[in-house]
Each structure stands twice: as structure tokens, then as C-alpha cells.
């Protein structure tokens, strides 16, 4: 039993990431992008009988029901995925699995986040502020709140900086090699009108002269939070001919969850990245080297380098030299994150992780315009959640 060829992505919609979305509600953003994806596939709302969403701030529960009612659909399969940055990729294989199991025929996968904007009355920097006082988390009873947060292990910068430190200790890595990832991805964004940094150039010097936030990571190696939304339509093989768009066949999927607190993460040569990607390639019966596009989760430059090795694209310890000696742009010899990656496209919450999936599917469909990878047959999309905690890999193909 395998998901290979059971379903395909036939509809895609994505709102261009913005810094802030003002007073628009998250349901408005999801409803808009969902309707666009349904129309893109050439389907109608009544054709949608599956819905996959993620936890949404401001909706305390009943998320699938709330979203379904707002969209005007009545799914026979309703699912919530909570895998951080792997959520988007995790949605796609769950949709295919539900289709294969007969629970639905056409599933809408929805991701998005809103950002209202900076509060107008935020206090200005004041050198005479009183010293900060300790705070007790009001709701978070997780082991991370108890054993990580007291030390400043809050958010993701600290964790990925520690991954970069450890990687550099084990294998050696130059700052310029990490920066090359950001620079090549920016060239891709320069060919993607929807990318947040579409109009801005980036050089290695720009990256390395930006502020060091957490040693060794610079500001321009770190994703910028944005608002936006992305949606995919996954449909059964026998409904693919009814769709307006060419299919991006789901040929393989793999997933792994190894820890929650970063201190409990596996060693860097035994992460869930490898477990998930090997499973995806095995299901599709292909090898990493067969891929014409790598769409790899890039919350930080170091994540791309680690994933290149752990997913099997590059031998252990050679990712730095690899990115230095290859052209990672859409026109290059190793197309990587052709939408710009989240670093240059923008990270709109869960839609940021989904952007790697939408790009892989769109490239397979041959709809990427200026940045289209010519003759693309196979693409790999990877999602990563938490501090390398949750991993989902997907192999897409132009042929079933």
C-alpha cells in the first residue's frame, strides 16, 4: 500500500506575502485564497469534500468546522494539522491518504496568517526604563516552557544558531557559504513578482554586514515574518481529467517527529529530515539525484545546508562547498527554492512552509513563467517544524 499516484495537486493559489494585513480577518484571507485555488483547478465549491487546516490564533477550537462554514463547504473529511513549518507538506499527503481511503475525492489544503501591524502606542526605547522583572508563563505548561524558556531559548533564532554552531564544529562551514544560499535565493525572488523582496538585490557582503542576531547567524540569514495565505487542491486520480490545470502527481511522502525541545534533538547526522526524506524517495522509488528541483524549508540559511545533506542531495559535510560551487537559481545547475525561499519570498506563518509545496507543484505544472525550470519531471518539497522537530517530505512528478 502506497500513496504513489493516488492523487495530484491540480489547483494552487497564494496571496503575495505582506508585512501586515491590517484589519482583514484570518477567515477572510483563507476564504479568498481558498476560492482562488478552487477556481484555479476549474472546480466549484460543491466539488470540495475534504478540508485540511491548521490551528489558528483567535479560533480557540472547532477550526475545520469554522473554516468550512465560512467557505461554504460541507466536507466529509475534516482535519487539523499542527506540525509547525511542516504543516503545509503534512497536509498534502494527508489529503492524498484520505482520498485513497475513500473519505473524500477533492481536498482543499489551507494555510495562512494575518498580522495586524504594530501597535500605535508601543513605548519608545527609553534608557531609563526600570530593569525587567521575571515573568511566569500563564498558559504554557510544556517541558519547553519549564526547561528551555528560563534560559532564553525562546523563539527559533537561538535554536538554529546552535545548529549552525554545532554543524560548523563537526564539518566546518564558512559564513560566505551560508550567505550564498540567501543570495542565490534572492536571485530567484527577483524573478518572482509575488516575492516580498522581488525588487531588491542582495550580495554576500550585504548578508555578512547585516547585524549578527545570534552567533553566527546574521539578520539576512533569518526569515522575516509576514502575513499571507496559500491553498492547494488535491484531487483523486480519476478526477484529474476534470481539472483545468495539469496535475502535479503526489508520488511519495514521508514524515518524522523526533523531539520538541531542541536540547533533546538527535545528532545532526540522524535527524528526522533524513527519516522523512528517505521515506518519501522510497515511496516514489526515486533518488534525490533524480530531482530537477529542491524546494527545501529555509527558515534560516543553515537549514538549507543541513537538509541538502540529511535528505541525501549532498554527501555529509559537503553542503557548504556544494552551494559555493553550484548555481542554485532557476537557471542554474541545481535549482533550489525557485520562488525565493521563505528568506526572500516571505514567511507568512504556515503559508511560509506551504510556499515550498506550492512552488514545487507549480513548477511541475510548468506555470512559473520567467523562473520556470525547463523540462521539469520530478521535484522534492520539504517542510520543517519547530527546531528541526517535525519533518515532512513530498515527491511530485509530472507523470503518474
Amino acid at each position, binding site marked *: 500500500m502506497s500513496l504513489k499516484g493516488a492523487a495530484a495537486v491540480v489547483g494552487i493559489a497564494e496571496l503575495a506575502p505582506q508585512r501586515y494585513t491590517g484589519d482583514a480577518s484570518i477567515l477572510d484571507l483563507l476564504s479568498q485564497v481558498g476560492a482562488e485555488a478552487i477556481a484555479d483547478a476549474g472546480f466549484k465549491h460543491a466539488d470540495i469534500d475534504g478540508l485540511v487546516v491548521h490551528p489558528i490564533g483567535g479560533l480557540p477550537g472547532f477550526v475545520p468546522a469554522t473554516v468550512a462554514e465560512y467557505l461554504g463547504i460541507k466536507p466529509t473529511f475534516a482535519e487539523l494539522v499542527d506540525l509547525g513549518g511542516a504543516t503545509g507538506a503534512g497536509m498534502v499527503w494527508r489529503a492524498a491518504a484520505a482520498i485513497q481511503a475513500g473519505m473524500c475525492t477533492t481536498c482543499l489544503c489551507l494555510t495562512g496568517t494575518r498580522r495586524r501591524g504594530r501597535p500605535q502606542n508601543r513605548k519608545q526605547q527609553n534608557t531609563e526604563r526600570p*530593569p*525587567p522583572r*521575571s515573568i511566569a508563563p500563564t498558559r504554557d505548561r510544556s517541558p519547553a*516552557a519549564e526547561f528551555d524558556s528560563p*534560559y*532564553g531559548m525562546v523563539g527559533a533564532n*537561538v535554536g538554529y544558531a*546552535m545548529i549552525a554552531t554545532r554543524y560548523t564544529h563537526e564539518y566546518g562551514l564558512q559564513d560566505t557559504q551560508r550567505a550564498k544560499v540567501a543570495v542565490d535565493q534572492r536571485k530567484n525572488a527577483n524573478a518572482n513578482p509575488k516575492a516580498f523582496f522581488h525588487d531588491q538585490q542582495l550580495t554576500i557582503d550585504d548578508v555578512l554586514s547585516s547585524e549578527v542576531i545570534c552567533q553566527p547567524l546574521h539578520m539576512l540569514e533569518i526569515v522575516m515574518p509576514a502575513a499571507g495565505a496559500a491553498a492547494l487542491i488535491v484531487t483523486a486520480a480519476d478526477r484529474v481529467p476534470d481539472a483545468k490545470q495539469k496535475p502535479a502527481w503526489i508520488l511519495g511522502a514521508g514524515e518524522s517527529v523526533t523531539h520538541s*525541545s531542541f536540547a*533533546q534533538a538527535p545528532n545532526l547526522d540522524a535527524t528526522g529530515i533524513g527519516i522523512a526524506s528517505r521515506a518519501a524517495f522510497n515511496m516514489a522509488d526515486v533518488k534525490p539525484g533524480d530531482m530537477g528541483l529542491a524546494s527545501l524549508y529555509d527558515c534560516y540559511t543553515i537549514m538549507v545546508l543541513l537538509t541538502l545533506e540529511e535528505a541525501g542531495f549532498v554527501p555529509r559535510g559537503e553542503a557548504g562547498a556544494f552551494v559555493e560551487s553550484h548555481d542554485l537559481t532557476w537557471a542554474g545547475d541545481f535549482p533550489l527554492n525557485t520562488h525565493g525561499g521563505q528568506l526572500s519570498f516571505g514567511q507568512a506563518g504556515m503559508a511560509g512552509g506551504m510556499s515550498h509545496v506550492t512552488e514545487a507543484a507549480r513548477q511541475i505544472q510548468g506555470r512559473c513563467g520567467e523562473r520556470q525550470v525547463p523540462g521539469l519531471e520530478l521535484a522534492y518539497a520539504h517542510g520543517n517544524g519547530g527546531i528541526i522537530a517535525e519533518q515532512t517530505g513530498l515527491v511530485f512528478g509530472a507523470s503518474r
Partner: protein
Amino acid sequence: MSARVIPPISPTTQPYWEGAARGELMLQQCSACGQRPFPPHTHCEKCGSAELAWQAASGKGTIYTYTISYRAPHPVFRDQCPMVIAVVELDEGPRLMTNIIECDPEHVAVGMAVEAAFEKIDDSDVVLPVFRLV
């Protein structure tokens, strides 16, 4: 003493924090298989046994990885940056998140030997295990 995020303590983890208040780094050890789970568990992460006994650890370990945070990861750490946030691998095996205190951040390196120290959290009775270079 410094301002921090105060850990939410549960009955399962209470002995760890009581140990820290005495100046001891307490670890569980599985009576069935010898595994040392961290953070504290109700059942052994390796064999599932509920027979977990508390023991004082040596407090010695090495830096597995670290970063220097130049910006406060949370406003409560505003006056402590640059701060060294590290994962320390204890001689007994478990890895834990911590801070390396009383050091020149630029001289910290992976593999350095460290030993536990104990720091009371401001505005709280909780004592937090931290580490200093040996």
C-alpha cells in the same frame, strides 16, 4: 540573580527543582534499564518502566553547542545580552538547555568542560541550574 521566564513546575518535575534549591543537579534513572530521562518523565523513555529513581548528578559536562544572543530573545532578558545560551551534555549522558555564566562569550567553544552552578531567579523562589566554564 537575574530576571527570567519562571519555569512552570509540575509534581513530576518537583524533585529536580527541589534539588536545584539545595545546589544539586538531580536526574532520574530507570531502575529497569539504567536510562536517564530528561526532562523528568513519568515513565522511562526507553523501556516504559515507571520505576524512576532520583539521584544527584555530578554536575559536570561539556558544551554540545551554544550561541551568543546579542538581542534579547524575550524582553525579560533585555539587560543580560549578550548572553550565552548553550546545550550542555552531562557526563551522565542527558543534554539540557542552559546558560554559560561568568564568562567572556567570545571565548566559549564547543567541547569546553563546564560545571553546574545555581542561580536564584528574581521575583521567584525558583533556583535555576546554570553552568560555568571549569
